[in-house]
């Protein structure tokens, strides 16, 4: 948390610091520049302040000379007065104009008093060959008739020093409009004094400067303050003349402060320039930029330090605040972390706080308590649920135990049954059952109670029990349904009903008697793979109508045919494409099955639905077929063959006849033709049996039945002595009864009924092939 708070605040803090620095630095820089500029101005003004009184004094003397016009003898006294009044004046003279033809005034006269060796010395400038009236200090003032300052000059005639001279003309007035120059009063200023004054000025740590005279005739410049020293540290090559030129250009444009061009100074520096108001001199100051900005830099340093200190304080403050929040929150987290489903008694810190942490703590406490309560409730309901689940499991196993398991029922010989029941819930309302009612009859039933779940299961249990009690030997399925209905209609307060299909299979003939109470008709798959619906006369579902009537229908199945009963959980299973699984899809599954046995068909239906559809209801499939051990099936491209291998006896013959009958009956052969075929089979097989009885020995016989589109082909084989019955002479059928033979009639019957008979002896076996058309006539 601390990290994120800092991450968020630091940029803001740094930004504020930076902006504050920027503003301050700019202001300081401006101030430094203004200060530099001001310094130049003050310096100029300081000079002016010294010089201006001297100017005033000299002008006063000049005007006194004009008004009073004292005699020349008094001039030295007045000059002496000037020197006494202004110690900075080195020397002074009152030089008269001596052009008029006047004895008193026409003579050149220029008494000059100057300081010399601590005293005032006197010299008359007119006495020497010093033609003062031609000299610039006199000429300029006299000609311009106004006070002027001379350019600096070296005074070789007395001062032996650099001087400037202030010259003020005085006039002799004739009228208000007319006047002549009467003379010039001067004051010499020793530039050595200027030099000393300039050297005493303080320019700050790195400042440099010069006091500079006008360039003509010779420029005079004197460094200000510690310029020489600063020059050495800053830039020794800095040229005061070049600076002067820059300054002059600035001043003509009215600019007093600017950055020095790089051509003048390689290091960045500012130049401040001023013109003296008295002398036509310049003050030019150069400040290195680093120097000027050192104050700003110092400020930045200070601000950075302050910022760093502030930052540390900020971190500390934030840490304290964050810790004040996070410590209790962490304590809460630790307390909550110890919680688990079985341990919800974790202690929460008792924080009487009014802040968010306090609110969170009490919210957690409420949550813990209600969670504990909820978990206790849930545990209780889970226990109840578990109890219920356990009971349901028991119910499931009880219900499953009501259903016959594969191999658990003693079935008559030669019948195969397979079944599957998948309840949609743990217990279901579907039922199937099958059991032998006598040695050759198998009762089978499938039922679907109107609901699902426990009510349906209870109703189903009642139904299953009743079925076992009511289905007794010799009772036809319609009768059984009728009785079931009579029992279940009574006291059916729950208004439940059940659809049921019930059949009785004669395992020795393949004959099925079937009745249905509102149940879907079973599917019949022949050994050839043809699928059809069993013709059924449906009655009302059981449990609704006491007066419901049921009718049985008869069917015959051949060995290899399979009858498949199912509940609507099969046909109404939701196929994955959203449609119903449907009777047609079921028919297709049965048709496409490679193996037509009940076990294979049940598995393939269940597997297909599991793969392609979602079971919404209880799903039950029951399949059965007859497969007598003496009968095997073969198939070639043209037709189906049934091979019957009976024992060699009259009973064996009868058995073979029964299977032949069931085969033909199941394949819609006309009853009269079935009788013919049966008769042929009996006659041929009986002859073989007789022959064996007469001759003995181990023997085998078989009857093969092949059904083509038009013909029934019956082939009888035996491994007895080679004998062609067709070779016997036809018996006398016309004569007197005394003369008639009792035997030999069978062959007559066979010949008469068959379309063709053919005998051969192949691989040591007698083979008699008889063909007859499927339809009589």
């Amino acid at each position: 948390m601390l990290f994120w708070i800092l991450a968020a605040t630091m940029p803001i803090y740094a930004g504020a610091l930076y902006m504050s620095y920027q503003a301050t630095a700019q202001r300081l820089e401006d101030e430094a520049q203004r200060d530099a500029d001001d310094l130049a101005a003050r310096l100029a003004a300081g000079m002016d302040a010294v010089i201006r009184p001297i100017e005033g004094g000299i002008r006063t003397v000049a005007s006194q000379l004009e008004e009073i016009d004292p005699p020349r003898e008094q001039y030295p006294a007045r000059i002496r007065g000037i020197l006494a009044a202004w110690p900075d004046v080195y020397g002074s003279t009152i030089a008269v104009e001596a052009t008029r033809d006047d004895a008193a005034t026409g003579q050149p006269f220029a008494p000059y008093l100057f300081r010399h060796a601590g005293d005032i010395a006197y010299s008359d400038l007119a006495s020497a060959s010093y033609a003062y009236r031609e000299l610039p200090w006199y000429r300029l003032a006299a000609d311009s008739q106004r006070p002027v300052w001379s350019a600096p000059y070296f005074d070789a005639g007395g001062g032996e020093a650099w001087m400037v001279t202030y010259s003020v003309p005085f006039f002799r007035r004739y009228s208000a409009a007319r006047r002549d120059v009467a003379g010039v009063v001067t004051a010499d200023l020793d530039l050595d004094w200027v030099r000393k004054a300039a050297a005493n000025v303080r320019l700050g740590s790195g400042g440099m400067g010069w006091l500079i005279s006008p360039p003509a005739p010779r420029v005079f410049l004197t460094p200000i303050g510690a310029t020489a020293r600063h020059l050495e540290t800053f830039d020794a090559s800095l040229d005061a003349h070049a600076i002067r030129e820059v300054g002059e250009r600035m001043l003509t444009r009215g600019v007093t402060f600017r950055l020095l061009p790089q051509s003048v100074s390689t290091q960045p520096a500012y130049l401040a320039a001023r013109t003296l108001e008295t002398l036509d001199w310049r003050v030019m100051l150069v400040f290195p930029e680093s120097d000027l900005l050192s104050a700003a830099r110092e400020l930045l340093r200070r601000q950075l330090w302050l910022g760093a200190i502030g930052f540390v304080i900020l971190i500390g403050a934030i840490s304290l605040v964050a810790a004040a929040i996070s410590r209790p929150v962490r304590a809460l987290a630790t307390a909550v972390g110890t919680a688990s489903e079985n341990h919800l008694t974790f202690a929460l810190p008792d924080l009487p706080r009014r802040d968010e942490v306090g609110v969170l703590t009490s919210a957690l406490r409420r949550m813990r308590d209600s969670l504990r309560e909820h978990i206790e409730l849930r545990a209780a309901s889970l226990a109840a649920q578990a109890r219920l689940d356990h009971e349901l499991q028991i119910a499931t196993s009880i219900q499953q135990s009501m259903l016959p398991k594969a191999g658990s029922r003693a079935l008559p010989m030669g019948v195969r049954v397979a079944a599957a029941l998948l309840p949609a819930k743990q217990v279901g309302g579907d039922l199937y059952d099958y059991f032998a009612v006598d040695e050759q009859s198998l009762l089978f039933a499938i039922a679907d109670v109107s609901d699902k779940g426990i009510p349906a299961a209870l109703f189903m249990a009642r139904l299953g029990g009743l079925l076992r009690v009511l289905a007794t030997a010799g009772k036809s399925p319609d009768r059984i349904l009728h009785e079931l209905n009579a029992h279940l209609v009574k006291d059916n307060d729950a208004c439940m009903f059940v659809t049921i299909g019930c059949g009785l299979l004669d395992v020795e003939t393949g004959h099925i008697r079937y009745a249905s109470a509102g149940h879907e008709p079973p599917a019949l798959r022949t050994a050839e793979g043809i699928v059809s619906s069993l013709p059924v006369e449906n009655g009302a579902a059981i449990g609704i109508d006491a007066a419901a009537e049921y009718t049985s229908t008869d069917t015959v199945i051949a060995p290899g045919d399979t009858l498949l009963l199912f509940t609507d959980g099969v046909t109404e299973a939701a196929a994955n494409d959203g449609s119903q699984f449907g009777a047609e899809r079921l028919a297709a599954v049965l048709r496409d099955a490679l193996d037509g046995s009940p076990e294979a068909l049940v598995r393939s239906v269940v597997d297909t639905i599991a793969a392609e559809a979602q079971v919404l209801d209880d799903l039950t499939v029951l399949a059965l077929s007859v497969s007598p051990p003496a009968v095997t099936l073969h198939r070639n491209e043209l037709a189906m063959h049934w091979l019957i291998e009976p024992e060699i006896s009259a009973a064996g013959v009868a058995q073979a006849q029964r299977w032949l009958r069931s085969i033909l009956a199941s394949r819609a052969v006309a009853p009269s033709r079935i009788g013919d075929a049966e008769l042929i089979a009996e006659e041929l097989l009986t002859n073989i049996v007789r022959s064996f009885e007469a001759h003995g020995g181990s023997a085998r016989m078989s009857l093969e039945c092949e059904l083509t589109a038009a013909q029934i082909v019956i082939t009888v084989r035996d491994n007895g002595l080679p004998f062609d019955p067709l070779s016997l002479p036809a018996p006398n059928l016309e004569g007197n009864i005394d003369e008639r033979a009792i035997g030999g009639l069978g062959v007559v019957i066979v010949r008469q009924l068959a379309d063709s008979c053919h005998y051969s002896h192949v691989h040591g076996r007698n083979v008699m092939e008889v063909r007859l058309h499927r339809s009589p006539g």
Partner: protein
Amino acid sequence: MLLKIVAESSNPSSIALAGRLDSSTAPELEAVLDRVLKNARLPRLVFDLSKLEYLSSAGIRCFIRARKAIEPGGGKVAIVNPQPAVRKVLDIVKAIPAGGIFKDVAELDAYLDEMQRQVRERD
């Protein structure tokens, strides 16, 4: 019960057969015939086949045996009401002469009355 045999020794003696008369059931009829044919002077033996569904040569042998036992003594074997499938077999082997097969009991009675009348007239 594949074959049901009801034998009546009234006049005329009759045996009603129901079900199947084939090689496996013929011995039962043989046993009945053994008993019935002990009466050597039996004038008439009527087989009521209205409920016989199936007949094979083994059954026909019984009829022929009966004929052989009775007809030499002037007796007669009659068949009443054979079903088409049975009739067909009877016809194929000509087990019973055409005059010995009757549509029903009434036709047989009429025939017998006629025979009796002829006998009386002769007498």
